[in-house]
């Protein structure tokens, strides 16, 4: 079955370790260049928003953090499904490794959102639909991490978390939609202007840079976590011992 060869290859931690080692610089360097470059661009070389003033520059970190946290959850749920269906160990490692990164990014999105809210809305926290959704995403990540830590058996932890991650992924669209609906029911008139303020193309370009930079950064750090976990799990195998003794 030549078609399935790639699948066995991806299931092999050793192969993945070697493959991802070659991939690392191709993720790390563009990620850092795009993130740093996009931030400098957005901080100093883009005109201020005529409604929000300079505080709008926070979106160059807030939006990528929120978007990648969301994408990270979907990646985690996909890995969870792969693990449950094909019992692929590597998928369990990816799922476990994505959780702390996603939680950190949702935390960042919440923090920068709150800091942006103070000069824009005059208060640190507003129960606006988007921020509430990010908060719930944060809770979902924390629940997964807590569940994983509660198990002593590593395989049971991975499978239980996989079920929870899939349940969460099925629920996320429902949660987001219900929060949108809830917000439309209670929306105060005073903060409607935020939705209307159209973003100018010159402001959009640095955002594209930091957004793609954040995706690459996620991939890079995910690989670092996955590689650490592979070494830890395979520490008694010959190839790992040869690897650590070799240098």
């Amino acid at each position: 079955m030549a078609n399935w060869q790639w699948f066995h290859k991806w299931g092999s931690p050793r192969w993945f370790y070697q493959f991802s080692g070659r991939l690392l610089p191709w993720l790390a360097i563009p990620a850092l260049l795009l993130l740093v470059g996009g931030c400098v661009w957005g901080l100093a070389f883009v005109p201020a928003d005529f409604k929000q003033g300079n505080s709008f520059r926070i979106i160059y970190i807030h939006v990528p953090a929120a978007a990648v946290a969301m994408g990270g959850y979907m990646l985690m749920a996909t890995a969870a499904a792969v693990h449950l269906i094909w019992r692929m160990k590597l998928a369990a490692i990816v799922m476990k490794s994505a959780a702390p990164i996603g939680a950190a990014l949702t935390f960042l999105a919440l923090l920068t959102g709150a800091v942006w809210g103070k000069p824009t809305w005059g208060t640190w926290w507003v129960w606006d639909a988007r921020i509430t959704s990010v908060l719930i995403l944060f809770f979902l990540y924390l629940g997964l991490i807590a569940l994983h830590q509660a198990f002593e058996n590593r395989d049971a932890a991975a499978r239980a978390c996989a079920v929870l991650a899939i349940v969460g992924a099925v629920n996320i669209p429902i949660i987001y939609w219900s929060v949108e609906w809830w917000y439309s029911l209670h929306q105060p008139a005073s903060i409607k202007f935020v939705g209307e303020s159209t973003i100018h193309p010159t402001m959009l370009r640095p955002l594209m840079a930091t957004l793609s930079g954040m995706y690459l950064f996620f991939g890079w750090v995910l690989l670092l976590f996955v590689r650490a976990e592979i070494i830890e799990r395979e520490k008694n195998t010959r190839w790992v011992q040869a690897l650590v003794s070799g240098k």
Partner: protein
Amino acid sequence: MGTSTVMFAVLRRDLQAALRRGSEWSNPLLFFLMVCSLFPLGIGPERQQLAVLAPGIIWVVALLASMMATDGLFRGDYDDATLEQLLLSPLPLYPLVLAKTFGHWLVSGLPLSLLSPLLATILQLPSEGLAVLMVSLLLGTAVLSFIGAIGAALTVGLRKGGLLLSLIVLPLYIPVLIFGSAAVKSAIDGMAYLPPLAVLAALLMAALALAPLAIGGALRISVDQ
């Protein structure tokens, strides 16, 4: 034995056990009653203010009470290895899980919903909202039972499951809370309360179709470890 025979057997066994140990169904009810009466003490006795907050309070407390009841859903069966027997039996898991969850709703969600008009009166909820409150709780607590059962199945093998269960399950409860309390508020304000109720019913249908699969998978994991 046919599937429906086993479903009824499981259901009857659970109901009899719940009736024998009265605490299983009465404790969540007492919790519901006590926490609801804490709110006026914390907020103040003004009628107007309580009337505004009542739908949200009742819904949040009902949600917590339902969650606390879920913790024991599979624990007894897990401890005396009945669960393992059920999983080993050649019967499909889906109807078994359905029977267990339905039985749980009968002793937790149903009495809670039936008691809710009393609490609503204590909390000064306008009478226009009473019927809708009860219907929304009947539909909503059923969804909560299904979602809670997923969490209970995942944590049943763990020694300290209780608090962990709430961390897992509470975020997933949010849509039910939103539409349940919105239905009551709409009824009080004289607006259309059927759409949110219809959404609750739709959520129930989705939970009915999908949740038993997740519960069954989670139970297998908990028993296998």
